[in-house]
């Protein structure tokens, strides 16, 4: 295992049975590594399997194949009992898109955060836990007085901070943010993104950030992985993948992002990738992007391209990468 790797995902598979003979290949042989203290962004179109990757890593889903090495141990093979015994659910936390739906409306913010502490036997007594809650609230930019209020009294951005405070309460090492800021106001989103970056630095956290906003992922991540129909098509450092994209899908995806610069938009002729993403149900052989790819040939339709190293921390799965 390479130095400092916190999470080493190897050939991960997650299938969903739909109907009698239909298998939906939501995650189909995905491998990547995340070093401790690093943020990996995961991007791709709706339905390509990003959330499923996150939920499987957090062991909210049972993997159907592959290994999930966390600190070198295959947590993918752990039973419910192992997970409990090793306190995995406190080490790996997930923050979701909808900050409202995930907070119980009948509990105060303080109770919501303290609940996790109690459950994991953190803190000696109630008074100590209350003090921890107050510190957490301050850490995410809220006030201690907020502990006595209910979720509906908070704005979307504040609720998302509460969700983050609750995740931090358990001292996690690894946090999965699934579209964690996409329900927020434009200006509030920036507050939360900056806070996540600061917390990462001050607490030594490691993140997997799932989003389909490519600009956001570029801002917050150190490395990025691009998914298409259950598979990784390109991965590497943010500078490499955004600066020198090589997979035709990544190129099309980046080209389609509108840029907040009128002069750029006036000169830029966008030729969007045509067609829809396709179905992950019982996929046949060949490159899954072949149906939309301008460079597809016979080889692409028959063989599945594997991720191959193309440069310094830059992997691409394509028979005809664009250079």
């Amino acid at each position, binding site marked *: 295992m390479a130095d400092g790797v916190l999470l080493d995902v190897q050939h991960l598979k997650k299938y969903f049975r739909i109907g009698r003979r239909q298998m939906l290949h939501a995650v189909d042989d995905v491998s990547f590594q995340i070093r401790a203290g690093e943020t990996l962004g995961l991007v791709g*179109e*709706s339905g390509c399997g990003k959330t499923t990757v996150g939920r499987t890593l957090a062991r909210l889903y049972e993997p159907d194949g592959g290994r999930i090495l966390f600190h070198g141990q295959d947590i993918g093979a752990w039973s419910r009992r192992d997970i409990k015994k090793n306190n995995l659910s406190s080490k790996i936390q997930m923050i979701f898109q909808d900050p409202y739906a995930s907070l119980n409306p009948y509990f105060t913010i303080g109770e919501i955060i303290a609940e996790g502490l109690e459950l994991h036997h953190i803190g000696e007594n109630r008074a100590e836990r209350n003090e921890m809650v107050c510190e957490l609230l301050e850490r995410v930019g809220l006030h201690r007085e907020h502990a006595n209020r209910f979720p509906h009294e908070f*704005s*979307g*951005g*504040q609720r998302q901070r509460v969700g983050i405070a609750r995740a931090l309460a358990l001292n996690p090492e690894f946090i999965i943010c699934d579209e964690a800021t996409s329900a*927020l*106001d*434009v*200006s*509030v*989103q*920036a*507050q939360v*993104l*900056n806070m996540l970056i600061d917390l990462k630095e001050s607490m030594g956290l490691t993140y997997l950030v799932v989003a*389909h*906003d*490519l*600009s*956001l992922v*570029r*801002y917050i991540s150190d490395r990025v992985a691009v998914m298409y129909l259950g598979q990784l098509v390109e991965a590497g450092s*943010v*500078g490499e993948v*955004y600066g020198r994209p090589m997979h035709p899908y990544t190129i*099309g*995806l*980046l*080209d*389609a*992002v*509108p*840029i*907040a*610069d*009128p002069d*750029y*938009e006036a000169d830029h002729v*966008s030729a*969007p*990738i*045509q*067609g*829809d*993403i396709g179905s992950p149900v019982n996929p046949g052989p060949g490159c899954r992007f072949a149906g939309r790819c301008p460079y597809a040939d016979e080889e692409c339709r028959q063989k599945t391209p594997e991720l191959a190293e193309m440069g310094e921390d830059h992997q691409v799965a394509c028979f005809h990468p664009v250079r």
Partner: protein
Amino acid sequence: MADRLITVKDLKVSFMTASGEIQAVRGVDFHLDRGETLAIVGESGCGKSVTVQTLMRLLQEPPAVIKSGSIRYTNGDIDMDIAARTDKQMRAYRGKEFSMIFQDAMTSLNPTTRVGRQIAEGILRHQDMSAGEAKERAVELLARTGLPAPETVYKRYPHTLSGGQRQRVMIAMALSCNPAVLFADEPTTALDVTIQAQILNLMNDIKRQRNMSIIFITHNLGVVARMADRVAVMYAGQIVEAGSLRDIFYGPRHPYTWGLLGSVPDLRMNLSARLASIPGTPPDLFSPPAGCPFAARCAHCMKVCMEVVPGEYAVSEGHMARCWLLDAECETEVIPPVGRDKTVFKTERKEEVHG
């Protein structure tokens, strides 16, 4: 000469709720010319949707109430004040003069009727055509939105289509009667960038071919840069800055606009750059502040800002902002942190502040 279709003056819209009056739109003025796209941007809850829904009179009244103002609509023989019309009178114009695309197509498509039939029925309501012709036209529209196999899509029910496909059906429906004005309320927010790009291209093509006007609501400043001719920036129920696309992106004058432009990640920003987030949250519209609505979050807030609402200051032809910093008597000099134009700017007040 610009052909003015819509002129909105001092529009105020409130919701009368059990817990009090929510002042959702608090005196907005703007206009729309034929063939142009006006983008409305701003925080969530600042009144963008309420504004355009009032223009089509789609709001449930009550609880919504138009407290004041006029919405003049002129097109050919039509010259009316939409604010003074009833819902019934407006029905004749919906679809034909104006139509709307919503963020969530599912809420505006009838789940129990095949999508093609829904489009054809809309056409038959407003146009003198046979059922066969209406069907042909519906299929043609579906094809234009880039949907593969439009004849089969015609026969499908909304729930059998993906989000992007439904959105394209709704666009076909909105365009089916050749409206003069299209209102698009976050039409691509729920879509992927590749589908979004297809739909934006389609809207721009149709706008050019038919000289249609569009009011486009979005949070996405990239989409604004791709679509808009002019931009109105809303904050807490007011338009705080308005101007041409270039005015707003390259020479913004309002501190909220600066914050907005600085807080959105851009694909080309420096990798080590930090987003400028605006501290705090927007004001509560139950009891909007007495002075400038942005005062509580503004780094340049002065005493006058908390007491009196700033009036409109003309920055240049067609570019206005509502901020005390622009007043000739204001002594604070601030250099805009974003945009290309880095000069301090003072101006005469365009109109006296009321009250």
